[in-house]
Structure formats: structure tokens, C-alpha cells
């Protein structure tokens, strides 16, 4: 969750509930039209034209991954959270194909899928609620107050008006103005170790079988121009986790694929590291 939310695509959404850029799952790509991966998923789910409770999460995962692959093929810049979602769905998809298997946290793939459906349903419910709200009879649009009020009847204590928001905004702005002098950090174009590690822990940390670092992770997470930094940071993070005994790593020969797996799931094996 880094840059994804800084400037959501508010400008695109100045119309209530308007049509999005994509009307077919057949990839008319306009990723800027979506407010985050959940929004995109909800749109794809609606295209299944069934009740949200009955969508196929597997199919949804396929469509999402195809969408991301298409966007990447066209070299569209995708925010990081789209890619994290892609990696998670790839993971979920692989688990769903082997039903009734428990993950390291004891949850089944079906439970993970249900949790995703719950989130989609809840988001859709809030969208509907917003639409119903704005379509009510609204003051100043459908119903009106007295046009020539003769007096303002207010309680005495409201004479001075200021809200908590005003107060906090003033305080924060004032303190910030005096505190921030010339600190400005340029946007990073490399993956930090912490980011890489967080993603690794989320994905590889629970995989019990040998998984290729490139095939599984890098393909979904990095833009082509970020491959080098993504591999470097992920690899460094991997080594750190190996040192802590949380991960195993294997490489057949120099420059070949790196395989990882969660240590908890496997019997101890010698660790060999060749630099690639």
C-alpha cells in the first residue's frame, strides 16, 4: 500500500455510478478508471452476471490475472497494490485448484475465497447505499427551506462556531509549518528491503512447496524496469529470512532459478547459496 492511494482516480469519478472504461472482460484496458484492485475485482465479478454470492472466485482470479498481464504487456504503470493483489490471487488460485487443503494458518482456500467475497459484497453494498442516499429527496434540490427566514433561532452556546476539525487542522498546520524546514524525500524507484520482505512473508512465507522466486513473485510484482531492484531486494530479504531460519532457499546452478519454501513446512536440509 504505497503510492496506490496518494492520488486516487478522483477525477475520473466525478459522475455518480457512471460506466467504467471497461465493459468486457476482454480487456479494454483503462486501469486508471479503477479505484484500486478491489474496485477492479468488483467490476470483473459483476461481469460474471451472477449474484456475488455465487461468483466463481477461481474464475475471478483468472480474469484479474489476465487483466494485469494485459496491462503489463501494454506497459501500463500499475500501482503496487494491484500487483500485491495479483500475487495474492495467484497464490489463492493455486490453492483453490487443490481443494480442502489447509494452509499454514489453518485456513482453507475456500475460507480465503469467502473472505474475498465478503469484502466484495460489502463494497458493493456501500456503493448501492451511496446511490440510494444521493437519490433521496435532498435539501436544496428537491425540498426547500423557508426562502425568507425572519429570524435565526439558535441556541446561545453556538454563538462561537468552530469544529474539532477546524481546531485540529489549525494545530497540525501550525506545528507542521514550524517543524518541517527543508526535509524532502524524493520518491524511491527501488524496492526497499522492508517492502520486499513484507511481500515475501505474505506469499512465500506460507508456501510449503518449493516455489520459484522469479516465476511466482517477480512476474507479478515488478514492472519490467523494476526487475533488477525487485530481484535484488527480494533476494536480500530472502537471505535474511534464511538466516533467521524461517525460509529455505535452493538453486540448482549459477544463474538458474531460485527456489524458496517455508522452513516450518519442510524437514531441515542443507542450505546452499550460489550467487546468480
Amino acid at each position, binding site marked *: 500500500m504505497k503510492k496506490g492511494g496518494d492520488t486516487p482516480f478522483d477525477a475520473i469519478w466525478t459522475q455518480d455510478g457512471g460506466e467504467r472504461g471497461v465493459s468486457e472482460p476482454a480487456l479494454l484496458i483503462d486501469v486508471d478508471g479503477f479505484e484500486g484492485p478491489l474496485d477492479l475485482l468488483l467490476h470483473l465479478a459483476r461481469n460474471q452476471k451472477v449474484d456475488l454470492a455465487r461468483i466463481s472466485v477461481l474464475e475471478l482470479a483468472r480474469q484479474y490475472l489476465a487483466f494485469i498481464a494485459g496491462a503489463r504487456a501494454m506497459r501500463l504503470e500499475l500501482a503496487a497494490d494491484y500487483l500485491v493483489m495479483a500475487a495474492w490471487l495467484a497464490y489463492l488460485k493455486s490453492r483453490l485448484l487443490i481443494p480442502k487443503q489447509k494452509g499454514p494458518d489453518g485456513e482453507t482456500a475456500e475460507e480465503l475465497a469467502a473472505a474475498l467475497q*465478503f469484502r466484495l459484497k460489502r463494497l458493493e453494498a456501500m456503493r448501492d*447505499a451511496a446511490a440510494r442516499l444521493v437519490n433521496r429527496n435532498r*435539501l436544496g*434540490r428537491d425540498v426547500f427551506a423557508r426562502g425568507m427566514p425572519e429570524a*435565526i433561532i439558535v441556541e446561545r452556546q453556538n454563538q462561537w462556531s468552530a469544529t474539532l*476539525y477546524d481546531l485540529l487542522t489549525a494545530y497540525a498546520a501550525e506545528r507542521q509549518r514550524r517543524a518541517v524546514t527543508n526535509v524532502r524525500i524524493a520518491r524511491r524507484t527501488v524496492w526497499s528491503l522492508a517492502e520486499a520482505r513484507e511481500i515475501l512473508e505474505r506469499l512465500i512465507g506460507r508456501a510449503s512447496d518449493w516455489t520459484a522466486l522469479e516465476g511466482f513473485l517477480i512476474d507479478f510484482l515488478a514492472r519490467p524496469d523494476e526487475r533488477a531492484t525487485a530481484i535484488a531486494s527480494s533476494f536480500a530479504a530472502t537471505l535474511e529470512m534464511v538466516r533467521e531460519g524461517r525460509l529455505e532457499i535452493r538453486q540448482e546452478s549459477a544463474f538458474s532459478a531460485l527456489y524458496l519454501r517455508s522452513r516450518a513446512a519442510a524437514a531441515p536440509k542443507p542450505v546452499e547459496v550460489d550467487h546468480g
Partner: protein
Amino acid sequence: MDDGRQFEVMAYDDDVIPAANAENPAARLHLQEAMRMAEAILFASAEPVTEKALAARLPGETDVGAVLAELQRFYDRRGVNLVRTGDAWSFRTAGDLAFLMSREQVSQKKLSRAALEMLAIIAYHQPVTRAEIEEIRGVETSKGTIDTLMETGWIRFRGRRRTPGRPVTYGTTPAFLDHFGLEELRDLPGIDELKGAGLLSPRMPANFNVPMPLADPDALAEDEDALTDVDLEELGLLTPKGGDD
């Protein structure tokens, strides 16, 4: 124009004084005069007037609730209605006459979709923290969106959640009720169904029932117990309150 309306009994020839009061001429006169006064005060103000402020201006022994109930009934089917929002009352033009009022319409800034979505989430899930809003929407919230909503005067800081970190919680204001013509938060469209479906919960409720393509939805999982009545009651009670205050 609005042919579905019932014209048979109109407020214009309605006898609004209840029979009970009519028996006591003194009480009846008092009620009628209090109604005139309340009517004058409410008509004079463009903003909703609280019952407290109204009571302060009416003669001491007035039953303000009864006066307002009578006035509301009296104006029920007229061109102007007496409406309640929270603990305040105001006269507003009847909703079915909106088509007449284009001349009075004030141009309103259109809210972005993000802002509308956030407004709905705050209204239905309040008190709700920013992290919870972002969890529901799946994206971070820009400061501009919050500012825009704050400017409308429809949302406010409510307080702080008594959990670690004590995050700020958001809720709606009386102006929100006034603008959307809601008597109270429990009148939010569809709130009961949403609550019943568990969709106002921060996390997926245990009884959230999604048929699995790969599993028998009724079969309990190995780590799952059947729900008892007590559980169900708790789940109902534990869902975040969607507007009982």
C-alpha cells in the same frame, strides 16, 4: 402531475384537534395558541430548531411533544411539511412538489465517487476509523476527499476508539440528516437488511453464508462449531452500531 395521491381527505379540511382535548376548552385553547407560536417560530427559521430551543420559547407548561405531533399531522399532506431530523424540527416543501421548484434550486457541488462512497461508509458504519474505511474501500483515502466531505458539514470527528492507538472515529452530523431528509440514522435506506446480512461488520461474520463452489455450504468445517442461539444474539449485538445514537 401526481395522480396517485389520495385526495379524499386533505389537510385543508381536516379537523386536527383531537377529540380528547376538545373536551377541555381551556386545554384546547392552550394547545391551539402553543401551536400558533411553534408554527411561527418554525416558519421563521430556515434551520431546524431543536425541541429544547422551542421549549424555551413556548409557555412553561406546554407539552412541546404534543404540539409538534399535532402540527406535523396538520401539515402532513400540505405543500409544506413539518419534518423531524434528530432532535430538531423544520418546515420543508413537500418532496412530491420537487418538479415545481427548479427556480429555487441551488447549484450543488457534485461529490466525487470516492467522496460519496466514503460518506456512505461513514454513515452506515459509524463510528468508523479511517483505517476501517480504507479496509472497506480497498484503497487509501486522499486528504482532499476527507476535506471535501468535512466542507459539506455532513461528517465530523466523533471521538476516539478505545483500542490501542486510540484512532479517531468519524460520524455524521445533524446537517447530514437534514440534507438527506432522514429523521434519524436508523432511517438510512436499507440499513436493517445490511445489518442482518452482516455487511456492516468490520470482519466477515461467522454466519456470513457464501455458497462455495467447491464445498457443501452446510457442512461444518473441521474447526467450526454450529452456531447456538446465544452466538446469534451476540453477533447481532456485536455488529457495529449502525445508527442507534
